[in-house]
């Protein structure tokens, strides 16, 4: 326990896992989103402890900020009520757990087995400065950046398009 | 150069005929007719120039055209004509004219697209008959396929989609086997000589070990046997013929079979003589079984087109027998049969189509006693049925006689059993006449007899069959010219 970052890492990791578990099991959507924010923030801490402050910041700003806000907006627009949480509860019957739990456990087992089998004594924690990241982004990864921008543009247009149809569809229904 | 024109005129005619149907269907028909007729005239010019009495009996390609196409892969646009291909080109164009004329009243929907497809098929057939480059050959082979698919699936009867898909699957799959075999040959040739080429003359001498030669040969044989069609790969033909229109049946059964037989004689026999020799007993047995099998099945059919289709398979069994008999008499008989079969079976399809147009059905039990009301058509039907049963004095007899007498030299039992096939042909031919035309007119049909254009076309076909039967020497003479390219075959 000589490392000052080790304790925060494990603590944040534990928080992240617990919050995530809670997030996927809530019957009320807003609760789930709140736990998701907790999980994301905890992951941000984990990033920080692993020596990636930039990413930690982005995690907070974009994930916990922008994306979750989108979710919240949608939840607000849908006006979900007590009835919905009741159906959610029904959907989360114990039988529905078996398959996902088994599959996830198997996957996790394989991942852990992989990691443990090769005894890597290496540690992590080297800090990458924003400058390094920027150089990498606009150096070797320039094409990737361009593609990402195209993807985002496409997503923008697509979301607009789908949203427009939805409006007209609703109008037709009315 | 004239060979190129032959193909170009057909494709151009098709491309022009297609849009013109929007203005008036008649324009489209006229364009198609003039394109095919022009081609036929060109072919006749060739007949007098290269195969007339004045021409020498020497070897070599009588007409040749060689353009570089894709030099990186050794692909040429190489056409060539000798006696064998000339005869079949003439048959193709002649029956092409017949098909266009017969479609004049039979096809009423999508006239432009119909003629486009028809002319494209004819162009593909000419390509197959004239190619001296195996890639071009394969290209033309596949070119026939898609328009034929449309001819069946657009202008067919009730179960046309099923028939068209069946046709497509059979021919396409077997064509792919041929492509694989072709590439194998191509690389084998490269391995042996270091040259990449699809040139027929170059590939002729490719050294192959027997095992490999057998597999490559089987690949080619698959495509040819399906297209012919040979027993037991024949089942697509009755289904297709039962659905397609009479003119497409003419193309399907008469001309496609001609290309398959041609391809066997031109490519299969000279390219893989040993492998062919090894497999020929099997093929002879299949041919003989096919002859009897199809004759008996033709006997039981109630659909007129199916009946004729099985009759066609029976005749093509003789073709197969002649090709694999390994005897030049039989081989000449094969070409003779291909031509006579094209005319007689094609004409039977036209007769069946003409009957169908009148009684609105292809089922034999709706007919009967038609002689009372349409004597001319019935008489013509009788004539072609007689041609199909191999009556001496008509073209089919000469071909089948030569095949059998040639087969007898090597395989006595096969010739004897196949001769029974000629007897069996009597069963279905007479049944056809009896149930369609004779008997009592129980349905009280009153129908118009042959129209002028029908009468003319069928009359010409009758004349051709009589000519082939009584004086086939010009055909055999022309064929003799083909001998120089594969002297071992024709000796």
């Amino acid at each position, binding site marked *: 326990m000589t*490392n000052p*970052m*080790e304790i925060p*890492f494990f603590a944040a990791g534990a928080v*992240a896992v617990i919050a*995530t*578990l809670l*997030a*996927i099991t809530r019957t009320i*959507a807003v609760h789930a989103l709140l736990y998701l924010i907790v999980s*994301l923030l905890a*992951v941000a801490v*984990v*990033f920080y402890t*692993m020596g*990636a402050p*930039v*990413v930690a910041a982005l*995690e907070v700003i*974009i*994930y916990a900020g*922008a*994306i979750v806000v*989108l*979710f919240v907006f949608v*939840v607000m*627009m*849908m006006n979900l009520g007590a009835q919905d949480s009741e159906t959610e509860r029904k*959907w989360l019957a114990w039988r*529905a757990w078996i398959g*996902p739990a088994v*599959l*996830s456990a198997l*996957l*996790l087992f394989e*991942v*852990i087995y992989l*990691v443990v089998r090769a005894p*890597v004594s*290496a*540690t*992590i*924690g*080297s*800090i*990458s400065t924003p400058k390094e*990241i920027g150089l*990498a*982004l606009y150096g070797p*990864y320039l094409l990737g950046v361009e593609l*990402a921008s195209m*993807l*985002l543009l496409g997503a*923008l247009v697509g*979301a607009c398009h*789908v*949203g427009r149809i*939805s409006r007209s*569809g*609703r109008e037709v229904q009315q | 150069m004239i060979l190129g024109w032959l193909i170009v005129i057909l494709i151009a005619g098709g491309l022009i005929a297609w849009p013109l149907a929007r203005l008036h269907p008649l324009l489209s028909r006229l364009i198609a007719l003039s394109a095919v007729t022009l081609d036929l005239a060109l072919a006749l010019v060739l007949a007098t120039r290269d195969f007339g009495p004045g021409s020498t009996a020497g070897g070599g390609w009588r007409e040749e055209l060689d353009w570089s196409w894709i030099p990186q892969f050794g692909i040429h646009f190489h056409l060539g004509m000798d006696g064998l291909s000339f005869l079949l080109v003439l048959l193709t164009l002649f029956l092409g004219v017949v098909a266009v004329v017969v479609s004049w009243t039979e096809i009423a929907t999508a006239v432009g697209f119909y003629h486009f497809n028809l002319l494209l098929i004819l162009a593909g057939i000419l390509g197959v008959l004239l190619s001296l480059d195996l890639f071009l050959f394969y290209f033309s082979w596949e070119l026939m396929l898609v328009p034929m698919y449309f001819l069946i699936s657009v202008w067919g009867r009730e179960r046309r989609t099923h028939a068209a898909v069946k046709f497509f699957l059979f021919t396409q799959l077997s064509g792919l086997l041929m492509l694989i075999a072709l590439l194998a040959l191509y690389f084998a040739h490269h391995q042996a000589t270091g040259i990449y080429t699809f040139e027929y003359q170059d590939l002729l001498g490719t050294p192959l070990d027997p095992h490999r030669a057998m597999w490559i040969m089987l690949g080619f044989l698959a495509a040819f046997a399906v297209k012919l069609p040979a027993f037991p790969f024949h089942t697509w033909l009755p289904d297709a013929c039962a659905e397609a229109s009479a003119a497409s049946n003419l193309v399907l059964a008469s001309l496609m079979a001609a290309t398959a037989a041609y391809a066997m004689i031109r490519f299969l026999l000279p390219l893989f003589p040993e492998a062919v020799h090894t497999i020929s007993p099997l093929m002879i047995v299949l041919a003989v079984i096919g002859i009897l099998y199809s004759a008996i099945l033709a006997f039981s059919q109630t659909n007129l087109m199916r009946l004729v289709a099985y009759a066609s398979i029976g005749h093509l069994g003789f073709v197969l027998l002649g090709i694999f008999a390994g005897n030049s008499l039989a081989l000449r008989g094969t070409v003779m049969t291909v031509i006579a079969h094209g005319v007689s079976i094609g004409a039977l399809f036209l007769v069946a189509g003409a009957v169908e147009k009148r009684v609105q059905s292809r089922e034999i039990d709706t007919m009967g006693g038609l002689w009372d009301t349409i004597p001319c058509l019935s008489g013509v039907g009788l004539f072609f049925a007689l041609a199909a049963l191999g009556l001496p004095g008509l073209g089919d007899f000469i071909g089948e006689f030569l095949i059998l007498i040639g087969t007898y030299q090597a395989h006595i039992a096969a010739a004897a059993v196949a001769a029974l096939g000629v007897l069996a042909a009597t069963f279905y031919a007479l049944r056809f006449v009896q149930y369609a035309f004779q008997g009592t007119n129980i349905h009280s049909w009153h129908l118009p007899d042959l129209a002028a254009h029908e009468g003319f076309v069928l009359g010409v076909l009758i004349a051709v069959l009589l000519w082939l039967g009584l004086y086939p020497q010009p055909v055999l003479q022309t064929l003799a010219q083909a001998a120089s390219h594969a002297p071992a075959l024709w000796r």
Partner: protein
Amino acid sequence: MTAIPMADGLILGGILFAVGLAGVLLRRNLLLILVSIEIMLNGAGVTFVAAGSRWGQADGQVMFLFILAAAAAEVSVGLALLLTYYHRRQTLDADYVNEMRG
């Protein structure tokens, strides 16, 4: 200066991914399926960052940025579709969507 065992970072990523997967399979609510997918992406991100940090390279973090972009795009389009769907069917039940049945 810091020394967290490499294995622990990877295992954390794995756990997050597995939990996200469980969420995707478990939930019938389309919204929560999307949430679970975000969690899975996060798990992948943790793995990348851990690996990048192990070698002292920026590449891991660059990858996380791309994941971020993909997640943003996915969420925007996904939510738009979800809204459309909700307006049509008045439900978010994923099992109700089976128009692609063969």
